[in-house]
């Protein structure tokens, strides 16, 4: 019974990692931009949600709803004014710029919010649980997982059912030809990063409610996100969810065997998948 519980908790934890990863996967899939500041952007969004909670007294979910448009605009501007300038055939400039941004964000947050550990207060929800018979699961992990499924479902709908989604896919295929169809790749990229920041806001909401955070924890979130994306196969959104779940289950199983093995077990699972399927579990047919 304890193993069933372990696996269920791991799957639900995977929802959080999938949320970390979905924005990264979206941006990489469309413009082949590896955003090394993704983890720090999640932490920044968590601080912004916290600021809104403290300033308005609203519950965290409503606060995230208020923060999301601002973070969309921030993502849009970041792409338009910064990343678009360095995207090109050479992958090094965007890597350097996002690496620099990561350092700047960490130090900026340290200056503004201090190194103190913070948490977004979620009230009774933090400890609420539901009895499913064989296992008892927390409401918060359930909500996290449901949100991850909803985010990935919504992204798929956008990708395959809307003009914007088709523009995303066309530009991802071939930006030069896309521009000959009247699509502005720069503006498509800016929309994609804006959208990624909305997903980052959702990820940040759950990160902040479930655990403590401080300006230094971004890079570790980035690693989990990367691993989930790569296990799933670059560019595959449902694959990202599976990737998150695999890391989550590996971590909880590892922790069950020995609490010190939690993080290590996640990384080992990642390496094991890479050994067997170097392109991930669900690589896109066209790359």
């Amino acid at each position, binding site marked *: 019974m304890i193993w069933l519980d372990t696996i269920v908790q791991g799957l639900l934890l995977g929802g959080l990692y999938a949320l970390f990863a979905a924005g990264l996967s979206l941006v990489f899939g469309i413009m082949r931009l590896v955003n090394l500041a993704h983890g720090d952007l999640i932490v920044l969004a968590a601080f912004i949600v916290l600021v809104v909670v403290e300033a308005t007294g609203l519950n965290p979910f409503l606060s995230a709803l208020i923060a999301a448009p601002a973070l969309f605009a921030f993502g849009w501007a970041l792409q338009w004014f910064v990343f678009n300038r360095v995207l090109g055939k050479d992958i090094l400039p965007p890597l350097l710029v996002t690496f620099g941004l990561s350092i700047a964000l960490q130090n900026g947050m340290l200056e503004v919010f201090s190194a103190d550990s913070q948490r977004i207060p979620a009230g009774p929800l933090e400890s609420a649980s539901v009895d499913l018979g064989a296992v008892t699961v927390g409401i918060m992990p359930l909500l996290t997982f449901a949100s991850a499924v909803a985010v990935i479902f919504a992204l798929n709908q956008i990708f395959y059912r809307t*003009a914007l989604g*088709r*523009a995303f*896919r*066309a530009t*991802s*295929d*071939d930006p*030069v*030809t*896309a*521009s*000959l*169809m*009247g*699509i*502005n790749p720069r503006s498509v990229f800016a929309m994609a990063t804006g959208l990624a920041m909305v997903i980052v806001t959702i990820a940040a909401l759950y990160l902040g409610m479930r655990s403590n955070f401080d300006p230094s924890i971004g890079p570790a979130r980035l690693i989990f996100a990367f691993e989930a994306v790569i296990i799933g196969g670059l560019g595959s959104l449902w694959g990202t969810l599976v990737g998150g779940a695999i890391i989550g289950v590996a971590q909880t199983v590892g922790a069950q065997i020995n609490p010190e093995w939690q993080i290590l077990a996640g990384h080992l699972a990642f390496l094991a998948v890479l050994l067997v399927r170097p392109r991930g579990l669900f690589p*896109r*047919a*066209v790359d």
Partner: protein
Amino acid sequence: MTPPVTVLDLANVSKSFGALKVTDDVSFSVPKGQALGIIGPNGAGKSTLFNLITGNILADTGRVTFLDQDVTRTPAMTRVRMGVGRSFQIPQPFEGLTVFENLLTAAAFGQAKREAEVEAECAQILADTELLRRANDLAGSLSLLDRKRLEMARAMATGPELLLLDEIAGGLTEGECQALVATIQALHAKGTTIIWIEHVLHALTSVVERLLVLDFGKVIGIGAPDQIMASREVREIYLGLEV
């Protein structure tokens, strides 16, 4: 009688890549409704000329005018919306999109309209280009003929006033070529202005009213097809024949 409207006008357009002058003082204009063929040996600068017209590359000197507007410095995506449609020599469909989605995207963004407004038009273009049966297949799975058809269909979907076709008949069998020529003829009959680069001369001359010969980036002849093909200079340079 009103004079024919000029759709495209190039005046003394030049473009160099380093020391290599790929377009050398090119001037010509295309009246509305005309089909102009462009011929010339490989490396004569034909595709570069198309790139200058679409805005993929910008001219070093000279002026490009489209529908009486100076577009010399206008970016490609704006020119598409103004009515410049283009197919590529090597088909470049969006392989991860279905055939219909390829058209829908080109039509919605190329004409700056909502998808719902252009759906019927896209279906009609698919029918005209005999692609209806492949509408829901991924473009990456198409045969060469269907890829060429999709190139043309997608260019048509952008709602072009001027359609640029780049070696659309190359690599096709005779039967496939005839089918494509019939489609182009039908399109031309509807009044679309066409500029067509082609090596398959009989396909080209069955559609165009005027031929332009390009060599080393220079225009060495422009006029009626039979007159151009009879010219000694053209036969020597383009066909490599001793006459």
